[in-house]
């Protein structure tokens, strides 16, 4: 098993909610602090495009995408 596709850095997170809006099956915000919650570090293929988009639009760089060089799942 290689590293999971996604990880998050709650120290960097500013709680803008872009990830929870863009990929709600993969990310949420905790109800108290409003910071990112990673629901699925290895989302099914159907949710990966949204997860990648969420990583791309995150304003604070709090979502880390670990893309394998050759796409094996």
């Amino acid at each position: 098993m290689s590293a999971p596709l996604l990880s998050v850095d709650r120290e960097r997170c500013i709680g803008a909610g872009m990830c929870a809006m863009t990929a709600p099956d993969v990310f949420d915000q905790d109800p108290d602090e409003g910071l990112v919650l990673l629901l699925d570090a290895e989302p099914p293929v159907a949710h990966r495009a949204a997860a990648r988009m969420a990583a791309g639009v995150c304003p604070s760089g709090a979502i880390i995408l670990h893309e394998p060089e050759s796409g094996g799942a």
Partner: protein
Amino acid sequence: MNDSFHTVTTLPTERPAGCPFDPPAVLTDARKHGPISRYTHPGGKPGWLITGYDMVRSVLADPRFSSRKDLMNVVDFQLPPAPPGEFLLMDEPEHSRYRKPLVGKFTVRRMRMLTERIEQITADCLDAMEETGPPTDLVTAFAKPIPTIVICEILGVPYEDRASFQEQIDAFMGGEVSDEELIAAYTATQEYLAQLVAAKRAHPTDDVLSELTDSDLTDEELRGISLILLAAGFDTTANMLSLGTFALLQNPEQLAALRADPALTDGAVEELLRYLSVAKTFHRTALEDIELGGVTITAGTTVVLSYNTANRDPERFTDPHALDLGRQAGGHLAFSHGIHQCLGQQLARVEMRVAFRALVDRFPTLRLAVPAAEVGLRPETADIFGVKSLPVTWDTK
């Protein structure tokens, strides 16, 4: 070698005649020369103007560029630091001290829970419009009251205080009053908020400001935070609603598409945000010498970031000057980027989705009541762009 760059000497500049939704021609022209132009601040200080999407975005994500008001190098006197609580003009760690306690109160989930209440507020406004009958000013009947009532309810501003409070905010956000009036409006707002904070401390109610009194924030800090939330909370959304409606009315085929397909609403809001970029300009100051696109920004130099030009960058958005509600407008910079990205963006989205949808559904024959050229625009000196009023009419049954 910074000599060969396109030069822009004055901002703000006028928008092209007949194109109220487009950035001033000087800015669009600057972008054609490249993402960064040499620039002179109105106070005479040298700076840089950044109009390219990628470059604006990278500056916003770069902690070597400061948001601090007291470091802004645009006039020939030292600006004071931002007042306590006004965290938009602060860097870390001060910025987080204020933003952190607020984040949980403006999450996607919490804002969506307000949908029903916002639908009710919107329906009340539309009912009143129908009752009064056409023509009406959409700014006062619709665009302003919806976000004002919502943010006042969230913060806990009593209903009876709202009218005078909105007048004060209008005075210092509208860009059209004298310096004396501006200071008077600012002072009056500060005094009002000081009383409000004291009242919430004494008698907490079910609202965000009361919740915040249960923290280590001082009264002065709470006052600053409240000011930011209120000013940012309705002037921006109000101008998006009125200017957005104007833009839809001027693009009838887009309006028809939106009216026909409720599924288009969320994307339409993102596209209107991109296309209009009502919060148009922000500043950052280099904390050290920084290389950017072949330029050395020397430490202490302030750069101007043009959001509305960046959101019309042809290298990022195909046919950028077209309003295309079906496009993928995600990634626009209307809410900024980096650690200062809009705290209230999820609220603004819910408000706009609900309000635009309800408006187009309720008034299928909505149209301007005056020629488009007669719609009064805010001056470019206003922080937030928009229309002063939007006279509209419709067919009654």
